[in-house]
């Protein structure tokens, strides 16, 4: 089945940004020596936290399970190299909050010894869908584009999927890890795509790659040919931020606007990152868990920017040192890209499954914010067609009802509005604040609702018990009265009463007979 793509679609807003991609994509992917220590957080995905199955002092092998899933939406964690568990403790992790979280710390032994070395199985596709999904789940594969949603869960949607969208857009400036992965491992990505399509029963697949990656496009097209599949298509899309956003990419490739709060699966579409497809191939064909990924280390403060094949748990100071940079000379460290990444407080933060880029900039932006002059440039560039200046106004006034009317929760935090603002207002920061505030209010509301319900239930229960007691008492009273009526009267009175009764009956009989 051939699906020709005669033309592409566009979305409103967006920006043509300076790419800064050649900074890091001119060098081959570097390999690091095994770092002396690996810091592996027990949560690297969206969903329930994992539960460690190892304890301090345990010897572990490469690829060994460290922490198992605890719920349906969860993903296991494996050892990235062999060594000894020296601690399971709180440690800085890559998270916008800058808070610490539970990590398993391995002192590596340098042997890099596998528990079971990955072995290629040629008949890897000859399995049932549940078996394939189980393998993906066991390998700890999560979405590697940034969200980190467990891949096996995403690959078993309720809806039937017609179209697979593979995201190789990589629209954020500076980041080139997917570019390099496609250049060097295009074949594995294609085979991974095949596996995903088999699992989903998808009829077609579009692989969207921005036109600023000609080498990756060529490699992918080259890798597609021997497969002989005409339902997979590499589509060259314009380099335009934020084309790599899920709903934006779907819009560009298919013209479909996924409604607010809906997911692509409801429209028979599913989106995966190229790096996830690569990891899935290795999980299925080699039984290899996800223990490494390619990370771009770049920015003006990095002496030798490049992409590195990094073991999960390697800390960022090891990475920047491998790029000939003194960690002490980094004024501003960012996890992710310049538009959506977050500042890191600690250089000892580890790389996790979703870390695509370490960006070190020479200076942080800290210009004084001027008042909003309502120029409307933010609204012009918003890919979701929001009115950021109005949202800002309501966030400022803490009018949380109004701000939701202006569709705050449709904001994808792409950063375009803040980027163009001539008053340099940190708009995204305001929107995040407002979201947090609303979530907190909702939680508070739920709590108070819960408390009120409990209170009302208690009141009702007490009232019911009281009523029951009253009833019981009344019954008892009546019963007592009755028995008292029967018993307390002395036999004389009873005899008199009985006699009277008899007389009455007699009289009644007589009257009826006289009537006749």
């Amino acid at each position, binding site marked *: 089945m051939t699906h020709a793509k005669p033309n592409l679609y566009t979305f409103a807003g967006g920006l043509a940004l300076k790419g800064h991609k050649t900074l890091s994509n001119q060098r081959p992917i570097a390999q690091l020596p095994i770092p002396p220590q690996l810091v592996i957080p027990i949560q690297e995905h969206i969903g329930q936290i994992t539960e460690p199955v190892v304890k301090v002092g345990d010897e572990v092998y490469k690829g060994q399970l460290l922490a198992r899933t605890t719920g349906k939406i969860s993903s296991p964690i494996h050892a990235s190299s062999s060594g000894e568990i020296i601690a399971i403790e709180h440690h800085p992790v890559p998270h916008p909050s800058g808070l610490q979280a539970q990590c398993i710390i391995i002192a590596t032994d340098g042997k890099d010894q596998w528990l079971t070395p990955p072995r290629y199985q040629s008949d890897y596709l000859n399995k049932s869908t549940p078996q394939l999904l189980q393998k993906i789940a066991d390998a700890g594969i999560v979405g590697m584009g940034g969200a980190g949603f467990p891949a096996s869960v995403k690959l078993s949607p309720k809806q039937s999927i017609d179209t697979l969208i593979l995201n190789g857009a990589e629209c954020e400036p500076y980041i080139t890890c997917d570019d390099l992965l496609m250049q060097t491992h295009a074949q594995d990505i294609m085979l991974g795509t095949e596996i995903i399509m088999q699992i989903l029963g998808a009829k077609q697949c579009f692989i969207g790659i921005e036109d600023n990656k000609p080498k990756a496009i060529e490699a992918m097209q080259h890798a597609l040919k021997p497969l002989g599949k005409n339902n997979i298509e590499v589509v060259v899309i314009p380099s335009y931020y934020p084309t790599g956003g899920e709903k934006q990419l779907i819009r560009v490739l298919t013209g479909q606007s996924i409604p*607010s709060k809906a997911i692509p699966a409801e429209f028979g579409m599913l989106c995966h990152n190229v790096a996830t497809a690569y990891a899935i191939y290795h999980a299925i064909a080699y039984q290899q868990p996800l223990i490494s990924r390619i990370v771009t280390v770049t920015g003006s403060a990095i002496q030798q920017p490049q992409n590195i094949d990094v073991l999960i748990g390697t800390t960022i100071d090891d990475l920047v040192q491998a790029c000939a940079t003194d960690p002490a000379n980094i004024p501003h460290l960012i996890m992710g890209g310049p538009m959506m990444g977050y*500042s890191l407080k600690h250089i000892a933060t580890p790389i996790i499954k979703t870390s695509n880029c370490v960006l070190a900039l020479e200076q*942080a932006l800290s210009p004084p914010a*001027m008042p909003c002059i309502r120029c409307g440039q933010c*609204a012009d560039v918003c890919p979701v*067609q929001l009115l950021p200046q109005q949202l800002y106004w309501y966030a400022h006034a803490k009018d949380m009802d109004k701000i939701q*009317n202006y569709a705050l929760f449709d904001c994808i935090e792409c950063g375009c509005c803040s980027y*163009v603002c001539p008053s340099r207002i940190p708009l995204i920061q305001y929107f995040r604040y407002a979201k947090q505030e609303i979530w907190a209010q909702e939680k508070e509301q739920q709590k108070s609702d819960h408390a009120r319900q409990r209170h009302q239930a208690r009141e009702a229960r007490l009232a019911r018990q009281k009523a029951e007691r009253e009833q019981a008492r009344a019954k008892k009273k009546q019963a007592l009265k009755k028995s008292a009526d029967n018993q307390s009267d002395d036999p004389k009175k009873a005899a008199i009463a009985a006699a009277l009764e008899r007389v009455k009956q007699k009289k009644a009989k007589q009257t009826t007979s006289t009537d006749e």
Partner: protein
Amino acid sequence: MKSPSVFNHSSPHVQANTDVAKVMLQVLLALLPGLLVIFWFFGWGIWIHLGLACMTAIACEALVLKLRGKDVMLYLKDYSAVVTAVLLVIAIPTVAPWWITVFGVSFAIIIAKQLYGGLGYNPFNPAMVGYVALLISFPLQMTIWLSPFTEFGFVESVNIIFWGFDAHLSVDALTTATPLDELKTRLALAETVSEIKMSGIFGAIAGIGWEWVNLAFLGGGLYLIYQKVISWHIPVAVLSGLFITALLFYLIAPDYYLSPILHLFSGGTMLAAFFIATDPVSSSTTPKGRLIYGVSIGVLIYMIRTWGGYPDGVAFSVLLVNMAVPTIDYYTRPQVFGYQKLDDTKEE
């Protein structure tokens, strides 16, 4: 382990090379051709008033910022006060006395801008508030314009601005009513447009001098659109609102109504369309809203010019529509991506 000195700054971590000052400087640059044309036709007075206006604006802005406990230098450096001063000066006759400019600019900056909360908070265009205050308070000084190309040197200009008319000079010999004024007065005397146009104060398109002023502001305005400082919506809407209304009446009775072209190149039309109505703070911000806002101004300019008490209606039109901006913005919200239609039922 060493830790870099990081700022916990929220994304994005890069920004376009722009700020309010750069926007304002672009506007000033775009105003330059118009200023030069005014100088060419109406003499040295424009520069003298310009100097006065800028000094007054900066002094007033600094004073109020200080009283409000704000960072004076930070806000002065945004050049917004200077832009207000220049826009107001363009509307003041070049031979008006010095205190006209000082009063007008002070009123614009202190009352219309700072008392409402300063940059970004003024609901009305400060320059136009200042202009209207002057026009209502001092109608005589505000309507005497030098005849174009009058031999009038720098010294004479200084004399006239600071010490009033020289005894040797006759006011009537030097000054004249503006073309729009002339048209209004004589149309009221039942003359036809074509008769009035014979009077010698009209050039190829509109009034001598004024047509070139308008052309210069048109050029400056196109530069601003090219530089993406302003969007095309408001200027196009203002000009088409004025043009279409004028065309309608002109087609009905060309002897009693001015031609649409004459309207476009007379008085403050181009200045209003590209520089006054586009003031971001006091104008509409949604794409559809900008069109409604602009057309309303264009139609109002025509109505005031044709049936109102003043020869030109730019300032009043802009201020009147400024009042409607919150309502316009509210009803013209764009459709958010992924929504069929914004749910208005949820509004309180």
